[in-house]
């Protein structure tokens, strides 16, 4: 109980809310880094998934991408990107760039895989019918395949979003910043209330992200087809 009082004291201390190491700043870093990474991930992965899913070609590379993505640890992505950016830009102090690149790389596989899988699940006869009606390939994709596959595609984006928000915590290791920074600083200086308070915020943010995308997915799913879909992995 006494400990929870100390956590509350950290939250209510005015010093926690201002300056270069404040809760609002770290929260903003966490959310903006995650949102940017997810947006870029969707921009890259969605066209790839749509192309492969519509044509049916390149399925093997999808499996390869998924398996590799699953075997590389989230922390590994962050670690691998750091030296490459240091060599490419010949300097350190790149701020969030290495973390952003790692998070985008992490966001891509679930979206490609689910978009591909979602399009493949669409009944072939529907597509043949659309083609018979004289629809162009582009129109078939936009008007038939994507609407039917939307819940599965959104499930992939949800997996990515949860993983990105989780891994943004680890971005503190390479970039400084994000809510993970409070946890690492706190461990370093043995300030457990700070560690615990920041962890509460990270957990809440992850659960809120999961909830938000679960809601989006539900809204995109016709009432008759409500069921469970894939979950993200922890990071």
């Amino acid at each position: 109980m006494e400990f929870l009082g100390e956590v509350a004291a950290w939250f209510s201390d005015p010093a926690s809310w201002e300056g270069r190491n404040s809760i609002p700043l770290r929260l903003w870093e966490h959310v903006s880094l995650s949102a940017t990474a997810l947006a870029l991930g969707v921009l890259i992965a969605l066209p790839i998934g749509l192309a492969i899913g519509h044509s049916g070609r390149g399925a093997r590379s999808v499996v390869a991408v998924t398996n590799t993505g699953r075997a590389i640890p989230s922390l590994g992505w962050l670690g691998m990107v750091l030296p490459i950016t240091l060599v490419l830009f010949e300097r350190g102090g790149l701020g969030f760039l290495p973390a952003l690149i790692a998070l985008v790389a992490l966001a891509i596989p679930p979206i490609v895989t689910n978009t591909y899988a979602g399009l493949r699940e669409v009944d072939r006869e529907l597509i043949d019918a659309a083609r018979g009606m004289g629809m162009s390939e582009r129109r078939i994709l936009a008007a038939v395949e994507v609407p039917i596959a939307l819940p599965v595609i959104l499930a992939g984006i949800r997996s990515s979003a949860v993983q990105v928000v989780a891994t943004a915590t680890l971005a503190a290791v390479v970039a400084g910043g994000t809510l993970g920074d409070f946890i690492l600083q706190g461990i370093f200086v043995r300030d457990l209330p700070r560690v615990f308070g920041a962890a509460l915020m990270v957990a809440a943010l992850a659960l809120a992200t999961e909830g938000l995308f679960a809601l989006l997915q539900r809204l995109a799913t016709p009432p008759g087809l409500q069921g469970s879909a894939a979950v993200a992995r922890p990071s």
Partner: protein
Amino acid sequence: MNDQPFFRFDWVIDNLDEIARRLGEHLVMTGIAVGVGLLISFALALLVRRVRPLYGPTIAVTGALYSIPSLALFALLMPITGLSLLTAEIALVSYTLLILVRNIVAALDGVPAEVLDAAAAMGFGPVERLWRVELPIALPVIVAGVRIATVTTIGLVTVTSLIGLGGLGYLIVNTGINRFFATSIYTGVALSVALAVLADVGLEGLQRRLTPWAQARTG
């Protein structure tokens, strides 16, 4: 780091002992997490199969645990268990539960009713039936869950280096990122990926060996 080669093989050769030690720590931490996770999941699966209404809440709770980032879960446990192996293992075990419970329940549910009737007719008691009939039939699906849980755990164990433990994360973070030393980072990541792939392939092989009859059906 620009005045030296990007990857220094001489460092790897000189530090083989250290690398082997970190790999060993990684294996032990993964083994404990998946082993304990499997035991708990098995008990939970048997429980929710007996008391069906508990299945939904069990999946909801393990699912919520699953979406909490690992560093945050370690941090939330720290006031109770400190910066210790116990903290890491409690979190790692809790991440295995969702996949394992779901797969074990689905696997046992998938055993055909006629088979269960035949076992009853042969006079098998519930324990003997579970051990000699249900488990062998359910094994491929259970092992599929164990494979996913193991690969996921191997990745998550790297994060334990941030709370002062060892494993391959030590090579990635402590001697790698913190010193801007690419060789150590890539050694840690490569070994982690290799371990995940080997564990995945190894478990698949084990499952094939244990259930030779399953090949005929699945091809």
